[in-house]
């Protein structure tokens, strides 16, 4: 039951956001609904991350690794909420602001959590399908090039102040996440045939969407900040990320929770 409600909520967020963003329905009239929908996505992820930490137990290594991921997504949720408050409620420019601190803090926390999970998985690269390794290599290279170009080269203001070059910090933050995020592909492959394979694959796709969104945000920063279509569609990539990562984290948690339930007297 809880599983079905969780999936239905995620699909509703994805579906309704897609309709609102792609068709730009209602224009400014739907701004409130659009913002609420946008915020509901990271709320779902934080909920899923808390669920997986609770399921593994904080005393387990997995529990502590996922706790870092939980803190990362909580940090993103705070950043997103502040952005909406500044932009929609107060009508002031949200960039740069304290929201950036929370956005940036999330990257190393999530990267560290993933690194711990990769370490715990003890990946045997020699036994992984070559196509998976090539995909991992190609995607990592493309993302490193994309992030470097859009968030470091394009964002650099020669002779500018630290304030002018704040965007560069996002570039370095994204780079911190690229390799750990892409390592989730071989990590997922380690569990092929097991029930946690698909959930890990969803987390991988979600984080890929996040980094793709970051890259496009850097390239189309000006029209995005002006709220122009189709540049605002970058939001859909981030919403997709939040929902897919939430599905992945909750998916792993539900697998383990179902096993634990076998010992609960009916």
């Amino acid at each position: 039951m809880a599983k079905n409600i969780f999936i239905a909520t995620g699909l509703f967020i994805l579906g309704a956001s897609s309709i609102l963003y792609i068709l730009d329905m209602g224009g400014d009239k739907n701004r409130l609904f659009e913002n609420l929908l946008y915020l509901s996505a990271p709320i779902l992820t934080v909920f899923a991350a808390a669920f997986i930490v609770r399921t593994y137990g904080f005393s387990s290594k997995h529990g502590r690794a996922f706790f870092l991921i939980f803190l990362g997504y909580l940090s993103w949720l705070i950043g997103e909420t502040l952005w909406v408050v500044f932009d929609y409620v107060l009508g002031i420019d949200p960039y740069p602001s304290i929201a950036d601190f929370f956005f940036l803090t999330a990257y190393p926390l999530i990267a560290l959590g993933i690194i711990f999970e990769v370490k715990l998985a003890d990946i045997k690269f020699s036994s992984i399908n070559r196509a998976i390794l090539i995909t991992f290599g190609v995607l990592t290279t493309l993302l490193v090039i994309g992030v470097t170009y859009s968030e470091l080269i394009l964002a650099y203001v020669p002779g500018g102040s630290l304030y002018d070059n704040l965007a560069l910090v996002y570039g370095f933050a994204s780079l911190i996440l690229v390799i750990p995020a892409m390592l989730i592909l071989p990590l997922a492959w380690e569990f092929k045939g097991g029930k946690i394979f698909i959930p890990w694959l969803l987390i991988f796709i979600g984080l890929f969407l996040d980094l793709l969104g970051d890259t496009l945000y850097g390239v189309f920063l000006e029209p995005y900040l002006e709220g122009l279509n189709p540049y605002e569609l970058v939001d859909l990539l981030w919403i997709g990320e939040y929902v897919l990562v939430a599905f992945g984290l909750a998916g792993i948690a539900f697998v383990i929770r179902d096993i634990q339930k076998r010992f609960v007297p009916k």
Partner: protein
Amino acid sequence: MTNEVKDQAVKLISESLGEVTAKSYAEFYKDKNDEIVKASVQELLIEVLGERKALEKMKGLL
């Protein structure tokens, strides 16, 4: 039944599925013999981690 097999099995479960699940299995394995414990943990790990990873983890126990 030796405690060694049971302890290793519970440790494997703890490493892969966390303490909460491991505690339930520790209780379940109390009166089970070695063969049942081995078969049970293998089946459980295959279900969650997939066959290759599960058998890799089971190496020390089999």
